[in-house]
């Protein structure tokens, strides 16, 4: 996993609530057997119309928006456990997803793939959206070490929560497998005297 740095970037606004994993990556694209290539189809049915032409008003197709931060509406990533959703977002180039609420499984999947879910208050989310509306070139800074997200050129900033263990993993690029393998012995000991 890539180490997570501090990102200063423009952002793409996706002001839709309850974005579910079927929208992030529709089921018909789940047939690959590796993790690559899903980025092309991220938000496929919102980005392209039935004939395969880009939907011009969809934010990812709007040339005035760019960057590695996606700012999304409430309850992002609900629905299925498919990690393909995280792979698709990472594959497209996102490093950070901001929302006022994330679905559980999606959040875990994102963290396991070096994609940082930043949960902010509803009011701060609105400020983020209006900052982009005002100026689509507006820059945002996401600092994992300090757990803050701020709007550059303003004094608007908010801190966010992250599990300290996950934070260490993200910063160092470790994953859970490395950790669990180091615990083999106590896992084996547990198996021999399961309390149930």
């Amino acid at each position: 996993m890539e180490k997570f740095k501090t990102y200063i970037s423009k952002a793409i606004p996706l002001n839709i609530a309850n974005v579910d994993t079927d929208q992030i990556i529709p089921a018909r694209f789940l047939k690959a057997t590796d993790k690559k290539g899903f980025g092309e189809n991220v938000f496929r049915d919102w980005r392209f119309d039935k004939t395969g032409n880009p939907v011009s008003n969809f934010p990812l197709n709007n040339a005035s928006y760019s960057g590695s931060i996606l700012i999304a509406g409430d309850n992002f990533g609900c629905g299925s456990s498919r990690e393909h959703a995280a792979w698709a977002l990472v594959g497209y180039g996102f490093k950070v997803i901001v929302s006022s609420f994330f679905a559980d499984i999606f959040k875990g999947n994102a963290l396991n793939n070096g994609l940082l879910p930043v949960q902010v208050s509803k009011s701060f989310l609105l400020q983020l959206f209006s900052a982009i509306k005002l100026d689509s070139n507006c820059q945002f800074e996401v600092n994992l070490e300090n757990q803050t997200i701020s709007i550059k050129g303003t004094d608007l900033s908010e801190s966010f929560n992250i599990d300290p263990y996950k934070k260490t993993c993200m910063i160092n690029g470790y994953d859970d497998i490395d950790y669990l393998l180091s615990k083999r012995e106590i896992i084996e000991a547990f198996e021999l005297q399961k309390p149930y």
Partner: protein
Amino acid sequence: MKKTLFDKVWDAHVVDTVKNGPQILYIDKHLIHEVTSPQAFNELEARKIPIFRPQQIIATADHNTPTQDQHLPVKDEMSRIQLTQLSKNCKKNNITLYELGHKYNGIVHVMAPELGITQPGMTMVCGDSHTSTHGAFGSIAFGIGTSQVAQVFASQCLLLTKPKSLRVSVNGKLKNGVLPKDVILYIISKLGTNSGTGYFCEYAGDVFENMSMEGRMTVCNMSIEMGARGGMIAPDDSTFTYIKDRKFAPKNDEFNKKVDYWKTLSSDEGAAFDKEYFMDAEDIEPMITYGTNPGMGIKISETIPTDNDPSFQKSLQYMNFQAGESLINKPVNFVFIGSCTNSRIEDFRVAANYVKGKLKAKNVTAWLVPGSKQVESQIIKEGLKDIFNEAGFELRQPGCSACLAMNEDKIPQNEYCVSTSNRNFEGRQGQGSRTILASPLVAAATAIEGKIIDITKQFN
């Protein structure tokens, strides 16, 4: 300290706690299928890590399998590759696989309980969010992502933070025609689709105590639809009777010993929950959804609510419904009875009982897709297939089918489908398809009438 059912099972599985961090939770059973496992197998292979406990993994092929001509090679190339890869991976790693055509093949959440793999007090995971189904037996069961599938492959454990606890109690007597599916759709419509996020939910009260195991599975199945990681129901005599004598159930003395332990698995009187809700059975009626998330449900006799929220309006626009209108008499051309929510024998009994002696409406294409080979055989054995045939219905072969439309069973663009599955997301049943979630009874009635009817009228 007083413990909840969830606490009891969770605490018994904690191997260790990371300082200031998550816990290492031991996983008893790991279920896998063709779609979310290949990348995990690849990852382990690339990192040269062996599978730690292959005997605790059970595999089935379900998500993209065809529901017709299962004896023939799978037509779709990508699906075929995934299925072949699953077979290869299982063979190489000594993992039990019920592949396409096997007498135990079926949707992972139908197959495991009916084989007695699912038991009270277990921890179970699968790379599929509806793993919550297995909580019906008083196990902690939840969906995981593919990275976590790889973690369980490598260590039979997961690093997790203990979720908070939530209890939904429903007491009273359900009205005629109100099925377990209506109960859960009602709960989700009341609580919303993210009320459960960060929580594990226990369902309690006499409604669940009096419910069959099939019904309890339907309820727990949709826990994820209110955002909860999983749902649980305390095991009782119905649970023990269901498990007894199934293929992987403990036998004889071993079984009795287990039952003694299983009986301890209920929330202590006075145990504290982080959130609690109470509902009355009498308030529940047959339910139906009108929007593009499972929380957008109403009683079938109600009208669509009004809401100025842009996401709400976008959703109605997608469905081509108006706020304030009723769904009664809306023509529907597709009906799907299947998915891990409602594809067990009881669901087909309900449907058969309703359609017996009637004829399917001409405009309707109705797919009946059993959850497993065993359910399929039972449908035939009980004579339900004949009833369906006479009424003009087509019984297909088991699999996930139109629940997520990864195989050929897709609902066409702009068509409505009354479906017993669990998700009505945009395009879930095929690009541009419009899903209306309902119970098998409402689905069967829709197929007969060719439109949505107020089923409550037939019960009053």
